[in-house]
């Protein structure tokens, strides 16, 4: 590209933030509503229970399998195709007797010509622990990030980025709740990765906002923030696109087990990109960030003075 052709877009993000506020409010309200009414469709990692995936040489007959299981007293078994009609997934809610032996019994019932692809049994106690640990992990990740950002920037930035993260997590969870996608351990991991990713995006914008506060004579925070958003826009889009590309590859080619994981990341990256442009910066603007807040400490000042 030639030197002159470079032009930074001048989109008025800040001026239009009222629409973003409305959109985010609607999405969050919808998510919280769905999470309260529907809850999450928790996988056996959290509820405990038994899951068996078997493969047949030919197309499997679901009703036949259901009858076989029902005849032996497994009435609560949920039987469905998984991936193709040659594979079925059998799920058992934690029953009064929940033990690793249930799967053995079921496998015997299905006969010898099936290929046992996967058996998962999670005892009720383990499920409870995983749920607690998962919640704690999310909390600790948020706290760790809050501290780092407050230390590197300023408390308002920390609050801005945390608001964006909570925004992203709630909406992603809301999506899983609304569409009743299963929420298992891998989805939890994906949501924690979304926290990392979305923050990555937010930090890049914040870095630029800080830099612009220090390097220009503008004092209008709205203008400075808008400038920073525009300057980082092409990077934001590029990185989101490359990440979305690989996630699409994972979603379509990674197989059934990784499906929920890829889906959570796809949604999270989309929401995270949006939130780093609209949510995080709106929060710091609303909290009244000014040039004075950005005045560097003595050491940093020297560094800036020596810049060409």
């Amino acid at each position, binding site marked *: 590209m030639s030197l002159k052709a470079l032009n930074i877009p001048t989109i008025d993000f800040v001026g239009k933030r009222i629409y973003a506020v409305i959109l985010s409010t609607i999405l969050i309200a919808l998510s919280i509503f769905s999470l309260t009414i529907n809850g999450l469709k928790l996988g056996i990692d959290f509820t405990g229970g038994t899951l068996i995936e078997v493969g047949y040489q030919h197309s499997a007959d679901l009703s036949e399998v259901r009858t076989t299981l029902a005849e032996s007293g497994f009435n609560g078994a949920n039987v469905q195709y998984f991936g193709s009609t040659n594979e079925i997934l059998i799920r058992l809610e934690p029953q009064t007797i929940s033990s*690793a032996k249930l799967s053995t019994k079921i496998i015997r019932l299905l006969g010898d010509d099936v290929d046992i692809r996967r058996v998962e049994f999670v005892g009720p106690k383990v499920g409870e622990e995983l749920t607690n640990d998962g919640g704690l992990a999310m909390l600790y990740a948020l706290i760790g990030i809050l501290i780092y950002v407050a230390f590197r920037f300023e408390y308002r930035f920390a609050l801005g980025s945390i608001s964006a993260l909570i925004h992203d997590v709630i909406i992603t969870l809301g999506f899983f709740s609304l569409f009743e996608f299963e929420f298992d351990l891998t989805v939890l991991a994906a949501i924690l*990765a979304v926290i990392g990713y979305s923050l990555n995006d937010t930090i890049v914008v914040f870095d630029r906002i800080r830099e612009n506060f220090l390097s220009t004579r503008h004092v209008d925070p709205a203008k400075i923030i808008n400038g920073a958003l525009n300057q980082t826009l092409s990077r934001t889009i590029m990185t989101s696109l490359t990440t979305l590309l690989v996630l699409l590859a994972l979603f379509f080619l990674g197989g059934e087990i990784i499906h929920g994981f890829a889906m959570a990341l796809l949604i999270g990256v989309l929401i995270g990109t949006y939130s780093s442009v609209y949510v995080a910066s709106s929060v710091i603007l609303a909290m009244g960030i000014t040039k004075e807040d950005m005045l560097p400490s003595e050491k940093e000042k020297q560094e800036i003075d020596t810049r060409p």
Partner: protein
Amino acid sequence: MNQFSALKNTLIAFFLLLSALYALPNVFGSDLAVQISAAGDAAVVESDLDKVKTILDEQKLSYKSIELVGRRVLARFEDNKSQLSAKEVLKQKMGRNYVTALNLAPSIPSWLSSLGGKAMSLGLDLRGGVHFLLEVDMQAVANSSLDKSYNELRTLLRQERLYKSIKKEGDTLLVHFKTPAAKVSGLGLIKSELSDLLVLDVAHKDDLFVSIGISDSALAEAKSHALKQNITTLRNRVNELGVAEPIIQQQGLERIVVQLPGVQDTARAKEILGAVATLEFRLVDEKNDPQTAIQSGRAPIGSKLYYFRDGRPLLLKTRVIATGENITGAASGVDSENAAPMVNITLDSAGGRAMLDTTKRYLHHRMAVVFIENKVETVLENGKLVKNRSKTQDIINAATIQGTFSSRFQITGIDSAREARNLSLLLRAGSLSAPIEIIEERTIGPSLGADNIAQGVMSVIVGFILVLIFMALRYRVFGLVANIALTLNLVMIVAVLSLLQATLTLPGIAGIVLTVGMAVDANVLVFERIKEELGSNSNIQKAIAAGYDKAMLTIADANITTLIAALVLFSFGTGPIKGFAITLSIGIVTSMFTAIIVSRAIINKIYGGKKLEEISI
């Protein structure tokens, strides 16, 4: 301007070469192999190697190679059929002091493995296998140490005839002393002789009741001992099953993780691992009628009522002749007369003596074999988790003693050959000191493992190529440089994973895929910054330098926050989440190196120190 020193360039090249070298072992496939290792702690030696060779040669089984690797002998085979038959033959001929197992051995050239080159270790979800989380029933441990203390206390106080009665009350023992003086001397004795016990209350001086508990340290000791002993027993059982590279580890204070790669018959593995089975040999009480005992609801003194598996009752003497503890050897077989499954038992010297005495004295009496199994199951009752303990005691056989015997004999009356095999295995491996319960199981069949690898690799490749195309289109020459950096990043991730021998799982592959998408971010940041600088700065060289410098801090900040999330994932996550966190963390760190330093070095080589009119970005 924009030139690295020769030293810096050499260092970068050195690191990259090193990475390539240690990533290399993953290129070579793996061989079907049979591994032979010593049971217990012993290591195999040269002579074992020769023995294996001789056995295979005798059987005319062709093999690719046989070598001594670490503590095991590895025999590699061309095909599945010879591998399987070799395993059977070796298992039989090498005897019980060796563990024979199927394995996949990476076929890395010797020069590479001598440099420490190893292939990545694949998780159970990629190679197939079983993961169990077992919980030891610690309440049972507490109960049995209370029993032990009860006996010790009784013996101690009985010598001086100090007590009227001793009762178990919950987790404590309630002693009723004869006199206040007896109480004083009794408590003194307990203090000096039984240090594990704790006197809980001595409220009234004239009160003759004292409750006594087990000290916390003694209880903790008993629990940790039970856990360790169970781990040893499980290890023996796994060795009996013949599994290559099993993992048996303590997790927390009362749990044990068992991972068995490549195990196909998971039902058997479950039966074997969880079983708390032992045998008791008792004489039959011929004088009394079991029916009377059933009707009166109480067995005659010195006898106890037992049932056969089919429900027939029988009275057995309470005195035990020998138990599973006395068994040193057990092998399943078939009775030559009626083709019934049976187990050949060998007893230790104490058991042998007791058996000899009994069979001499009670010739033509009947002796019964009682099969005892302790089970524990967690049950959901009214929304609460309750542990259900049950003990089954079945007579599997009651036969007339036809002649005297001591340490070697057979037991029959077993339902099936499978049960005979399992029973003999359990008796050999020793019993568990406390019942255990499987509280989590994750089994991945071999076919799904293979699918997972194929799909995982496919999505890495496709995602990677898409990003390559996208970057090249958008940033031209700089894009190609970023692509080289990205490729090197993949190589480095593989090298670090191989060197650390961190386990690669399917979520781990997802972590790599995500890293591929995110790793270019650093380059995107730099390139966009260079573009901006080109707008305001007329000197192209300065613009490139400023682009790298100014983007630097942003990249570091952004990556550190992602790293925080990854580390939290690592410390909180179990299995699948940990795998994801590992590759994500490694990917973040290596991408900083490749995207900032390596890409800069290449850009410098292309553009550095030249007078430029235009660059292709």
